[in-house]
């Protein structure tokens, strides 16, 4: 199953460009020109990754991503902007609202790599969550795992002084 990517940009040509950039990439794309429409979509469907422009009529990307965070906290949020002042960028990263900040023009490779990493992150988080759930259901498991870990360390120890 392909990861679901939602893209918001007030410039249709940019949306089309992204669509073409991800032509063969394994992603399901949802493109929106208006952040309001995207939010409406997000109310009903879960998405994995959200890419947003920053300067848009009606709402800035920061505001939009903030709302996305409220609705789908697990979705990876990426900002793709041609212009944002440094303060905004710093604040957004520090507050954990965005996973990556991409500036226009953004190379296709950069975009693909970022999306791949985002997918990996999602995958890791998903596995992590699964494991945590497993650990919680079987309290013995954790102790065994820890013991296993220390035996390995002992075994490896002499070879790595």
């Amino acid at each position, binding site marked *: 199953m392909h990861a679901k990517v939602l893209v918001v940009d007030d410039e249709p040509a940019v949306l089309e460009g992204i669509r073409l*950039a991800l032509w063969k990439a394994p992603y399901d794309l949802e493109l929106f020109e208006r952040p309001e429409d995207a939010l409406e979509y997000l109310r009903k469907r879960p998405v994995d990754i959200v890419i947003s422009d920053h300067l848009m009529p009606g709402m800035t990307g920061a505001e939009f991503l903030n709302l996305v965070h409220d609705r789908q906290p697990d979705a990876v949020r990426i900002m793709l902007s041609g212009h944002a002042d440094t303060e905004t960028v710093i604040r957004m990263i520090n507050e954990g609202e965005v996973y990556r900040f991409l500036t226009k023009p953004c190379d296709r490779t950069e975009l693909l790599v970022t999306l791949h990493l985002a997918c990996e992150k999602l995958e890791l988080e998903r596995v992590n969550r699964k494991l945590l759930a497993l650990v919680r259901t079987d309290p013995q498991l954790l102790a065994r795992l820890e013991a296993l870990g220390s035996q390995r360390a002992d075994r490896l120890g002499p070879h790595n002084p």
Partner: protein
Amino acid sequence: MPERRLLLLLLGITNLAFLALDARTAWPSPLLVIAGRIALTVVFVAAALLAREGNGARVVQETVRALALGTALSFGAIVKGTGGTSGPYFAFFSVIPIVFTMVVPDDVPAAVIISVLSALIGVLSLRGGDHPLTYSAFWCVAYASSGAYAVAGALLHCRFRWREAEAQQGRVARERERLERELLRQRLEFIGSQVNDILLLVTPDGAILQANDRAAEAYGYRGEELVRLSIRDLRAPETLGEVTEQIRVSLAQKKHRFQTIHRRRDGSTFPVDVSVRPLDLGGRSVLQSIIRDVSEEHRARAAAEYQSMLLENLHDVVVGLGPDLNVTAWNHAAERVLGFKREEAMGRPGREVASLVSAEGLAFEEVFAKAASEGRVRSDIKCRTRNGEFVPMESTVVALRGSEGALLGYVAVGRDISVRRRAQEALQASQEKLRRILDTADEGIWVVDVQGVTEFANGRAAEIFGLTVSEMLGRPFFELVPEDLRSIARADLESLARGEKTKRAFKLRRSDGSEIHLVHSRSILRGPGGEVAGSVSVFTDVTAQRRALEELQQAQKLEAIGRLAAGIAHEINTPIQFIGDNTHFLADAFADAAGLLQRYRAVLARGRAAEAEEDLERAAQEIEIDEVLREAPRTIARTLEGVRRVATIVRAMKEFAHPEQGEMVATDLNRAIRATLEVARNEYKYVADIETDLAELPLVMCHAGDINQVFLNVIVNAAHAIETVVKKGGGRGVLRVITRCEANEVTVSIADTGCGIPEQIHDKIFEPFFTTKEVGRGTGQGLAIARSIVAKHGGVMSFTSNVGQGTTFLIRLPLAHSAKREAA
């Protein structure tokens, strides 16, 4: 008078008859009787002769006296003759009548008394009985008749006298009147000719009876005209009311003197002093008026008062001295400077109140002695005041001499020069101070007279023009200044002549090659009387200010562009983003398609197309060739559109930034506005829609870069104003730009639907550093600079605003300005 003479003759004859009788009786002493009778007769005859001379009254008187004497003598003789005892009677009757006639002046009572006495004597004689009756009767008759004669004579005489007196009185009165008139006439003529006063004879009702020559001369009438006038015709109208009362008073008093105003024939008036005396002219009351024209006196008095006032108000000390050097005059200044009051000083020896020593060391008396010999001495003196100080004075002592050269006294005039000296020093100090102030001024100050010749220049003025003050003084302005200022200054002369003040900025190239910007303001200099005395030029070096302004303007431009840069980057980056994506897509698509084409070629080359068909179809499916073919044209179109957008914005930037060439260039303002809108797009595109209504405009000569800055500043402000509204939840706004070409100007109106400008800051928005934006968003320079740029182009920038509805800025740029510059 014949009757009287007859009577007297009769008396004489009667006496002769008695003489004859007495002589006949010759008793008791015929000689005595005879002598008496002869005397009587002589008297009568003399009386008769005298009567003929007309001296009647006296004759009658003498007659009666003689008769009385004769009677007394006769009576005495009778008494003696009778030898009776009547001795005392004799004496008594002899003396009494004589005394009577001598004492009592008039004849009638005397005659009566004598007659009575005579009759009494006759009676007494009869009673005596000494004589026979007849004889006695004779005497009685004789004496009675004698008395009767005397009575008759006296009565007659009285009648004569009355008649004569009447006649005489009439004659005398007529004669007297004639004489008086003659006398008066002569007197008047005499006075009239001798006296300078006006002489008028006026009836109590005011009619002029007589006037002297002086009167005719004084009033401007001819003599015969004057006597037909009333005194009222000679009075000034305002004094007419007094006339009746003055005449009344003059008649009541013996002499009346008053002052009034008289009028000449030509209507002019003059003050007079009038003395009136009533005269009795043959029973008629006449007023004699002596009138003196006192206008000269008035003038003289006024002149005297004026002179004394002059003397009093003179700032100089004036002291008059008699020949004995005692003070005779002491003016107010003398009181003030020397400290003695006039009352104290008058009459005192001069050296006590005005002791002085001249600069040459002459003492008081020596100074005056010198003045007496030389007539006038001028010297600097020191004069001692009341409290013992010495006042330095500049003095002139003049000896006054009468027409015969006799020394009348001296006048000493002194001027307190301590004040003048102090004033001079103060004046010099203030001039020096003023000069220093002018020299420290940062402005060049250059004063020229009406001929344009330099009267004053401060050091700064000399420095500006690379001259020295001394070479400027006395030389014409036009010779000293460079050619370009000369023409400017000439052009200013006209407005200066109209009394206006001129102010012009110009550039001056100095001898060392450097350029300075000066503002030359020039105004008319007026003399104390308000007359034009020249002009004052003030040169202010504004090079530094200009540079600062230019720098500020440049800085603001950079600031604006800097602020735009981020926006512009965004504007460019967005197309670049999709251009890149599209091109990548096209590149991949092209590679896939090329690979597919290769395989097709290979298949075709082997000639086994049929068996490869499935394989090829799969390959085509793999690269989604149908979709790529569908997608590619659109992608190319979008890519080209993106490239066009980038190109547009880059071109707009170039146009906007318009490198400043220092000269004005013909500019299409519409194009400039479009470029500016393009450059500023990012400022407004999220909040407002643009509406433009750009009319066809002629090219306008301007500094394009500066004008763009004006548009940009206004558009950015408009965008921010709309953004303020949008942020508060309002809908998208509209930014409307309209250009129009009017008769001689181009107007650009930039309207927004923003928040508007509150009324209370309307007068502040063009001030530098005034801003309503948050810190970091605006420096408050935008509109200030915009306005200064528009003003530099000879245009006007204004605005209208309604809070909550929006603001419209209107920029008007003159075409004439540009045309003129073009022609130049």
